[in-house]
């Protein structure tokens, strides 16, 4: 079993997202995350899908995706250098002013942004890899137990342009 990354160019049409996610659920492939957005060409969307599987299942997934009429191109990102980013919002509630200072310190140390705050709450924005965001959540959870809300998007990935394999 291994973590896999796939980049998918698809037709930007109603139902394509359902088609792709339905293919995963129908064949019992377990997806970790899926993101989609329109590309520079408004008729094309680009998806990033991450999931964990063995080699054989992964081959099947790629073939099944390739066979879908709505899929224009499948690119396997698993073993090539890529940049990955995931957006994470952490809201810390019931903050004292000392808590707020602590949040600012953490944000400063790890390069998070403070997206918003008021008297009691503070909203932190972390844009980094999925793994680093996992660590961020762990840190906030331990520092401010039962006072945080977590909202995370899926990962987007793009092949590296300067890193040699």
């Amino acid at each position: 079993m291994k973590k896999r990354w796939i980049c998918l160019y698809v037709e930007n049409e109603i139902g394509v997202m359902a088609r792709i996610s339905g293919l995963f659920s129908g064949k019992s492939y377990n997806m970790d995350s899926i993101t989609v957005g329109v590309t520079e060409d408004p008729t094309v969307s680009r998806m990033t899908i991450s999931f964990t599987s063995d080699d054989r299942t992964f081959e099947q997934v790629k073939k099944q995706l390739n066979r879908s009429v709505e899929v224009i191109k499948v690119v396997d990102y698993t073993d090539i250098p890529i940049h990955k980013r995931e957006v994470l919002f952490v809201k810390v509630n019931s903050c004292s002013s000392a808590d707020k200072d602590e949040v600012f310190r953490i944000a400063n140390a790890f390069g998070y942004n403070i997206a918003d705050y008021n008297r009691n709450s503070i909203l932190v924005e972390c844009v980094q890899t999925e793994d680093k965001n996992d660590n961020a959540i762990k840190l906030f959870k331990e520092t401010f137990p039962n006072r945080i809300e977590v909202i995370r998007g899926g990962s987007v990935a793009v092949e590296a342009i300067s890193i040699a394999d």
Partner: protein
Amino acid sequence: MEISGAKMFVKALQEEHVETLFAYPGGTAIDLFDALYDAEGIDMILPRHEQALVHAADGYARSTGKVGVCLVTSGPGATNLVTGIATANFDSVPLVCFTGQVPTNLIGNDAFQEVDTVGIVRSICKYAVTVRKREDLARIIKNAFYIAKTGKPGPVLVDIPKDIQIAMGSDEYPTEVNIRGYKPSEGAHSGQIKKALEKLKNAKRPVFLIGGGVNIAHARKEMTELAELTGVPVVTTIMGKGAIPTNHPLYVGNIGMHGNLASNKAIMECDVLFSIGTRFNDRITGTIDTFAKNAEIIHIDIDAASISRNIKVDIPIVADAKVAITKMLKYAEKLDIADWVSEIMKIKEEHPINMNSYSGLTPEKIIKTINEMYNNLIITTDVGQNQLWTTQYIEIDENKQLLTSGGLGTMGYGFPAAIGAKLGNMDKDVICISGDGGVQMNIQEMATAVSYELPVTLVILNNGYLGNVRQWQELFFNKRYSSTCLRYRRSCNRDCMNPDKCCPKYTPNFVKLAESYDAVGIRVTNEEELRAAFTKARENKNGPTVIEAYIDPAANVFPMVPGGKSLDQMIMDC
């Protein structure tokens, strides 16, 4: 010139040379039907149920090689197609199904007869799309036909909202197709073909395993040549039956759960398994880890996703069967394997499949009578024992064809498929072999066959049971016949394990039922009556003939590999 969407639809069918349209009207399709009313060159067929409609289109497509075309209304019209679309999808049958839809401004409103048709069929068809703009209509229809018939063929659904049917737009029908996400593979990789043939050349115990792909690619002639050129024996799946004539000296038989011993042995003992156009379904492999375990496996398939999915393949070749086989004919050579061939053929001779242990008119005798009496034949089956017996005993050569729901195993398929096959092949005899269970799932199609004056012969093997399940209950569930007896009445003993003469009489009386439809009905009890019945059926040129044969309720299909067992663990008889 500007024309309505409905007129564009008709024009598209004409441009695609659609001669036969299987169509059932309704509220959201009424504009299309109106435009079809005076359309030239399109024969409209009105089956009595949409499920039968799509099976008829399927039988038409399988038997002619053309695309089968369906038109139904939204909501229940569309949902009734589901079983037929899945059936066609599993067996790679090219269909284009048009469904009416509520107007675009009502979609999502739970309007009358609205369902999310595309959402429902998405996982059981090759492609499904709703037309959302009038200007897209012609291109979508053009693409639909192209997708359905190219590559691995399959069903495509085009959902047309009512307002699109009315809207005016261009009358141009595109001449070219360019779908950026769909480029079916053409050609066959020469290097891989040569590698495969090199492997074959050095084999001591090679076997060809041929699936439905060879029949779909219309490559029977080429396949027969390849078998003869190499001298390698041929085993088929039930979908591949007929890939080489069944009386050919190199034909071993069907593999799988109800195949013959020689075929299954050949697979278990071969050193090179050369498979073409099969997806190694669980019904043919038995347990995966013992399947052809000493063999190197070559697999040719048009669908890359079918390769190395169930069985790990050593040499994969993605190609159309006909293209690949034709290429192989150039390079293949004769093998020196006479001992191996005679070893297999000896097993075939010593362990023939027969029903000698049953008395009366057995399915074996019925099907063998058909073999003797018919030369130019399309035979369809329903699903269950009737299907398995047919695939065991029917002889197929270049003038005969077998249509059966192999992948999905859809009861109710056989009779409407026979009607569709007849419509596409008026010069051929068409027989459907059905059971008393399955035939009742689409018995209403008798009216269709009568309406269109179609001389289709329907043979009902009546054992009063859902026989295939009954067989499993007898063998593996301690004769607990749960919901399989069709003679059952509420007053029966609930634990009945032994049907006898005291059982309630069977209903319906299929002979009287046929007569009520203005069809010919004949009941037969022995071979002599059977021959007379077939002769009479042939003389009845203006409508269907039903031949009902009461067979031994206890007759089972043997040999058999129980589910989850290895191919060499066959039960030979009761």
